């Protein structure tokens, strides 16, 4: 993938196995977000191919990929500030609604029943999981950043995805919020109810090394190494290119 003469991603290959948390790390500008955008469909790479469950999905638009079960969150929260928390999350369930505009306008019988089912799902599965009962009717724009991130995660999992792309879910959070968020990520990955495969971009090495099954290291658009957290931490190139340079990342101890 390149932009003009800047080559953002070059000859990389990543294989995400079902059920795991696969993290992508790398210094700023390494191409992590570009990679996520390629997978979610915001960018279309000039070369190479993206396969999802054995199927090539390069030609699919983001909303078609969402239907296949790919959801994402963004590095800078992209929520609908004027809408309530509940409405934001309901939006994530949009693809599961079967009723059309007309029956929605009348709101009787099947449509009302369908809405109730979705509401039940949101309340029992998402709001309870993310512990956001106290803000369900608040406009998202008025909330602190940490809670906005939680709402965005809620919207993404409302889609009931099989693959969830998390672009720096911990950036800008305080320690308590980081711990909560890490707990939620583990919950949606391991809890029988969810079992969502996660592709995680993150700078917080403490959390990445703790919760990931595999870590993929990227630098200047090239892959450095892909392996277990232990292997990555021992890799001399990684240490030099990334972990060795203290000021490039923030580790919370």
């Amino acid at each position, binding site marked *: 993938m390149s932009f003009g003469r800047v080559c953002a991603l070059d000859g990389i290959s990543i294989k995400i196995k079902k059920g795991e948390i696969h993290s992508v790390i790398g210094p700023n500008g390494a191409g992590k977000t570009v990679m996520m955008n390629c997978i979610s469909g915001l960018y279309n790479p000039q070369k190479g191919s993206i396969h999802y469950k054995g199927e090539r999905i390069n030609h699919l638009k983001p909303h078609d990929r969402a239907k296949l079960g790919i959801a994402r969150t963004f590095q800078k929260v992209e929520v609908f500030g004027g809408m309530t928390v509940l409405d934001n999350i309901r939006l994530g369930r949009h693809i599961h609604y079967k009723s059309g505009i007309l029956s929605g306008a009348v709101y009787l019988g099947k449509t009302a029943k369908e809405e109730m089912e979705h509401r039940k799902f949101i*309340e029992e599965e998402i*709001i309870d999981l993310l512990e956001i*009962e*106290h803000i369900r009717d608040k406009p998202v724009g008025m909330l602190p950043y940490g809670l906005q991130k939680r709402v965005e995660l809620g919207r993404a999992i409302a889609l009931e995805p099989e693959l969830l792309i998390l672009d720096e879910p911990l950036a800008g959070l305080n320690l308590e919020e980081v711990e909560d968020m890490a707990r939620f990520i583990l919950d949606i990955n391991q809890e029988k109810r969810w079992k969502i495969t996660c592709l995680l971009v993150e700078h917080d090495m403490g959390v990445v090394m703790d919760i990931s099954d595999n870590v993929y290291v990227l630098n200047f658009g090239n892959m450095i190494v892909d392996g277990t957290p232990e292997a990555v931490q021992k890799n001399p190139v990684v240490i030099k290119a990334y972990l060795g340079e203290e000021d490039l990342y923030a580790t919370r*101890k």
Partner: protein
Amino acid sequence: METITKELTIPKLFYSQAKKYGKERVAMREKEFGIWRPITWHDYLENVKHIALGLVSLGLEEGDKVAMIGDNRPEGLWAEMGALCARGVGVWLFQDSLIDEVKYIIDHSDTKFLVGEGQEEVDKAISIRHECPKLKKIIWDDPKGMRNYDEDYLISLKEVMRLGEKLEKEKPDLFEELIGKGHGDEVALLFYTSGTTALPKGALLSHYNMLTMGKNLMDVDPCKDTDDYVSYLPFAWIGEQMMSISCGLQIGYTLNFPESRETAQENIREIGPHVMFAPPRMYEQMTRTVQVKYLDAGWIKRKSYEIASSIGYHVADLKFGKKAIPFYWKILEWFAYLLVQKKLKDHLGLTRVRNAYTGGAAMGPDHFRFFHSLGVNLKQIYGQTEVAGISVVHRNGDIKFDTVGLPIPGTEVKITAEGEIITKSPSVFLGYYKNPEATAKTLKDGWLYSGDRGFIDEDKHLVVFDRTKDVMILKDGKPFAPQYLETRLKFSPYIKDSWVIGDKRDFITAVICIDYAVVGKWADTKKLTYTGYPELAQKPEVYDLVEEQIRKANKDLPELVKVIKFVNLYKELDADDDELTRTRKLRREFVGKKYEDIVNALYSKADGVHIDTTITYEDGRKTHIKTDLHICKVKA
């Protein structure tokens, strides 16, 4: 309501009430997944029965201790009631207790079963298990995050109930037999008091203590079984036990459990309870909310509020003075109610409150008058864990904001020659667990020695001065209660906590903790920049603001009890740092030692004090703090 005999126990009463109300009435409600879900008396009984029998089949024997830790939720109360029905003894822990406190209480109380809410509580229990050999099983009820726990000493509440169901099938009469065995003089609860000076002491409370307490209070202010009560304060606080068990069980009103701690205020508004009991800090918080909203409001709203509240205050003062209210004031009062107070009360969830009680700490007269100006029938109570709740309360139409009222029926209150308040009543506790010295000091000839200093005024009302050991001696040799000034200072929305110093000193000084949220917002409007609490507290503008608040509090006070110098502390006082008890009482001796440098500086000529200290956060991280605190003299 029937009279309380010595034969009656909490389980017996529970059983007869549950049989009486059955499936027809709602015993409790819990808001879950956004909806209030009712639990009938029948379900309540079934759940308690299964927990009780489940505990029995796990090996609970007569007198074994069952500890509970967690938020207010039906399962917590079921576990307590289950333990009592199985002839065990209930022990409650504060949910935010640190590991050391949990360990001390579990170990000291010889707890055999611990019922925790979820992962957090289970983690706490696991980490202390090897140091508390008597602890057999840890029970949890919220499955969230529990997927990887498979230790054999862990068991879910559901599983316990399944064991109970099995046992019920084998021995269908066992539950009734167990309940029938009980006697009122047996220990029901082992309640740990959060001491302001020493390690917590375990007060033994009998069924008779608890039930007479509730009955005597309900004789003063009767409740109805159609009433609603919101249970959101920790069960480890005796006041909540009194309302939920002692009174709730006898009256049969509905207990309502909020969705989560954060939604409590909102849920109170939805329910609109008829009766309320909370420590002063809850009412202080409500006052602060109103004050802050007032500061934010537009001109018209502010003016309407000012007019309504001045009418309210005038009428309240007439009532305090027991004077007749002229008809034109009544019209104005009605007008103020319609225009402002109705809405305000609705937002605070106070619309239907018949009786609101406050106790557990001192409440300042300013806060007290504030609620009466709104037309809320707020009453002071006085009590302690050792009398299973309360012993003194205000009566309707006889409320004085500097007293705590008259003793409840069956209770005698006297003042010793030394000025100590002593109480005799059927609710006086049995003694401290494994602590005969403390028991001998507190219980003499059936009189409970409170350690509080007070006197009885001309209307026979009890006035609580302060803890005996906290009373200060002023320069002129007169005694003075520091908490009086502290509550006065706290009426300012900008001041969260205050600590008044001056025992045997030439003048009075204060250490102030600003309210971070309120002062932070104020600083935003003034375009002041700051990075955190320590920096904000030291801003000269904030010092000016605090000085103004102190000047207001100083007004009308005699020269000797005015705050002369003050300092803004670099952090808020916190129970996790042992500076406050879990019920947020100041541990004077401890802070006196901890902040010795600051105290010394306040009484020297210095205009600042250098702080070089380490703060430990809740997660164990440490931060080094180096800062200079400014000492300010209050200008007259």
